[in-house]
């Protein structure tokens, strides 16, 4: 086997694509954590829900409608969760919150089984993204490029919102120091609500985007949960920078590990996680020093 330039180009794109998918998932989770100090383990289940919403919507109204409405649907579910559970759990310790969201995983998993059955579903990508685009002599699937572009777009948008807008400043203040944020007259409850719903919406978006690429199964939420947690822990909790760095590290290690070190591919990422935590016990770019 003689891997040439086009081979490495393709693998780099594969790594980027995986990174961007993980970024969409992890950014919501990490900002929610930074702001509200709790890990929403049900984030993966919301991602699965996004994929199922998208699968149903796509079969009735087409892919683009699904891509637009599925994240909104998941955001609405997020609102209900916030009002019904999360808000009441704000004052409880992190263990209680972990448990509640763990319970939510069970509930959401079985609900998807009840509504959509155990059989895997799939969506076909829209015709415009079905073909391949030539990049440096490599015919790369247009849909995967779309994921890369979408991920980068969302990253740029979030970076802008965080650095340039008032709500971004509030979020940064909140992540830095919630007491101070409350003193500054920020309506913390409203801020949490918005961030939580947007985070859920992003998880739904990731699910909708992943659906044409992967198969839609009830277990997909649980499968993606661990990679997402690894991403945010390697990156450091609470920061956009950490989410993108963690996603890129995960994507590249996973992709090139599979190619270069196939024998240890399955433990490579765990070994990396352990190594990062050994050297930097709070990840690479935590929001707080």
């Amino acid at each position, binding site marked *: *086997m*003689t*891997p*040439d330039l086009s*081979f490495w180009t*393709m*693998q780099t794109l*594969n*790594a980027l*694509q*995986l990174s961007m998918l993980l970024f969409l998932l992890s950014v919501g989770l990490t900002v929610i954590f930074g702001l509200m100090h709790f890990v929403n383990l049900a984030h993966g289940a919301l991602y699965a829900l996004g994929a199922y919403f998208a699968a149903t919507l796509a079969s009735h109204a087409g892919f683009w409608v699904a891509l637009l409405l599925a994240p909104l649907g998941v955001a609405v579910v997020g609102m209900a969760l916030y009002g019904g559970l999360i808000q009441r759990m704000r004052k409880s310790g992190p263990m209680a919150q972990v448990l509640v969201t763990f319970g939510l995983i069970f509930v959401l998993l079985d609900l998807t*089984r009840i509504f959509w*059955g*155990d*059989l*895997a*579903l*799939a969506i*076909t*990508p829209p015709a415009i993204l*079905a073909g*391949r685009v030539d990049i440096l002599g490599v*015919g*790369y*699937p247009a*849909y*995967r490029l779309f994921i890369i572009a979408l991920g980068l777009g969302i990253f740029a948008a979030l970076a802008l919102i965080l650095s340039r807008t008032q709500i971004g400043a509030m979020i940064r203040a909140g992540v830095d120091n919630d007491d101070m944020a409350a003193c500054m007259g920020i309506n913390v409850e409203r801020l949490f609500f918005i961030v939580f719903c947007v985070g859920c919406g992003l998880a739904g978006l990731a699910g909708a985007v*992943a659906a*044409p*690429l*992967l*198969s*839609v*199964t009830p*277990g*997909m939420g649980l*499968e*993606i949960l661990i990679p997402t947690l690894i991403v945010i822990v390697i990156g450091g909790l609470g920061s956009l920078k950490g989410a993108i760095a963690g996603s890129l590290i995960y994507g590249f290690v*996973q*992709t*090139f590990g*599979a*190619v270069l070190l*196939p024998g240890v*591919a*399955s433990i490579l990422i765990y070994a990396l996680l352990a190594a990062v935590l050994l050297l930097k016990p709070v990840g690479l770019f935590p929001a707080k020093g």
Partner: protein
Amino acid sequence: MRKTLTAALTGLATILAAQSALAERVNVGLLLPFSGVYASLGNEIEAGFRLGLEHFSDDLGVEINIIREDTEVNPANGLARARKLVMQDGADVLVGIVSSGVLGAIRDFVHGAQVPLIVANAGNDEATGERCSPYITRLSFSNGQVNRPMGRWMAEQGVRRVYTLGADYAAGRQMVGGFTEAFVEAGGEIVGQGWTPFQQTQDFGPYLAQARASGAEALFVFYAGGEAISFVNQYDSFGMAEVMPLYGSGFLTSQLYVNAQGESANGVITSLHYVPTADNPENTAFVEAFQASIGRLPSEYGVQGYDSARALVEAIRTGATDRESLANALRQVSFEGPRGALSIDPATNNVIQPIFVYETVSGENGAMTQKVLATLPAEADPANGCVMPAPVTN
């Protein structure tokens, strides 16, 4: 110590068996995953099994009592459930087992307790090889059996250089191994092999790129379930079909998933022991009945359940209702079913059945269907170290 266990179990088994024989009732323990990743397989096998009983057990004169237990995909749990069915519920025969891990876990128990087990899916070669048992009869397939004929067939078709990919677990290794062995024997060359971490791989892109770079003529893969859908969709999106046609074990394009793959699966050639489009009267009847009761086409899992029920009924018709006689009778069943002519290999207790090579093609109203390219003759597995007494014939 094992001897005492066996003796104790045998004693208990005899008492329970005697009781059930008196009642002219056969207790069937259905051991399938009803939750977890294999729930859809468990459900389809059960549907097929119940349909089979409905079709074949008229005027049987013996009541068949089904007790279901959920094995999940958990060997330990599967064994606990098997024990419960035998020790507490007095099951005369066990039917089911989807995952090879669960089969491996309960093997010693059913062998020791001398309870007949009809395997309705799990395909690990050892179960009808070095770890075979006169009490375990497999009506489904063995991993090697499904794939070896494909190796020879592809070589016959003039394919010379193949790259293989498979899920990295025991079944995946055996499926691809069966193919590789036969393909190389028939003069083919394996130019490279990739193994993807089982149930941890969502993105096959890196592996597909490696396969592509290998310069092989064709790609042979084993994937099942959600991985099969992701794999076929991703294979298609990379435009691999133009450079490296896809062959595989038939689970890749099982009827259960093929509609989720859609057009991506068009042109994929695979081999399996059953296709819903198999052209024989038994299959036509089965497919019609299955569609009428479930509302969709059956897959190989449905037919495995259906044939398991038929084998059980055939065994009971020989007058067997207790564990010992059922085990003996099950080893000797043979019939024409939806898959064609089936019989049990007396040397291993594995089913002997024809293998279909089929191409997945677009059918009417957008649904995918199977075009049978060849029906390869029935073949028995090599004994693989299986030693057991021949069945008692009368």
